[in-house]
């Protein structure tokens, strides 16, 4: 029974055949301030393989490599915005969870305001009648 359990565990382990991870994939930077910057950025970047997750949350190998890349660039003195721009230049805005205001995304910001105005306009008649 116990042996079967360990066999199952061994079979279930995805890391058996994997390469060792990049040095900075799961290791924090020594400087807590830089690590905080890198970590905040990693939570705003989308994993390319498991697309709903950020690279900070994802266990995918490629996400690990992206984390290592982000940490290395931050450690080398790049700002989080520069690193983010570098990735957007390659993968498009899709790679960031923080879409910029542009021609295709403006309804995201405008819709709530427009809906509120429409609501006020609809409610207007009601209030007037009550008076």
């Amino acid at each position, binding site marked *: 029974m116990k042996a079967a359990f360990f066999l199952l565990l061994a079979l279930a382990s995805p890391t058996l*055949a*994997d*390469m060792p991870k*990049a040095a900075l994939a799961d290791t924090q930077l020594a400087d807590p301030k830089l690590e905080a910057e890198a970590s905040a950025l990693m939570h705003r970047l989308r994993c*390319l*393989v498991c*697309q*709903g997750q950020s690279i900070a949350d994802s266990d995918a*190998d*490629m996400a690990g*490599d*992206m984390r*290592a*890349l982000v940490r290395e660039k931050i450690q080398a003195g790049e700002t989080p915005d520069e690193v983010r721009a570098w*990735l957007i*230049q*390659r*993968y*498009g805005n*899709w*790679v960031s969870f923080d879409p910029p205001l542009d021609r295709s995304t403006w309804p995201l910001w405008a819709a709530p305001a427009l809906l509120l105005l429409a609501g006020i306009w609809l409610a207007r008649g009601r209030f007037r009648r009550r008076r």
Partner: protein
Amino acid sequence: MKRAIIWAPLLVFAIFVAMFAFGLNRSPEQVISSRLVGQKLPDFALPGALPGQPGLASADLAKGKPRLLNIFASWCVPCVAEAPQLMALKQAGVQIDAIAIRDRPEDVANFLKRWGNPYARIGGDKQSRVQIALGSSGVPESFIIDGRGVIRHQHIGDIRPEDVPAIIAALEAAR
């Protein structure tokens, strides 16, 4: 007017149901193509993926003739599926270089022994560094690089037999 407006909430509800039905049935997976198509290949220099073999640098891909740059890995199953097509392209005279992602030399050697080696040079990219610099989001992917080192085309996923003519045509167009 009053009569008609009574139906408005139901109409709005129906619109929402239609939107949800559409959204829930759509695959959330997106194909992320590289934004670097049409631009110069980023500079890189990778060590050889096989011991004693030459590596791959961006300069090797700007030598006057269009080349196919294949991103693969020995642990990647669709890479096995595209191996015969790469061999066929090599037979057709296409120059193919490769970048092996997150791979060990012995695994790459086994893979090539088993499925054939269509590659002129293979660079080893142990931490996906060059893959990310290229804007590639998985394996296998293939880039067509023209003679001046400009990325002209990106093929995402394995090259199927029916894709081969288009790849050859794209290589011709990159001349």
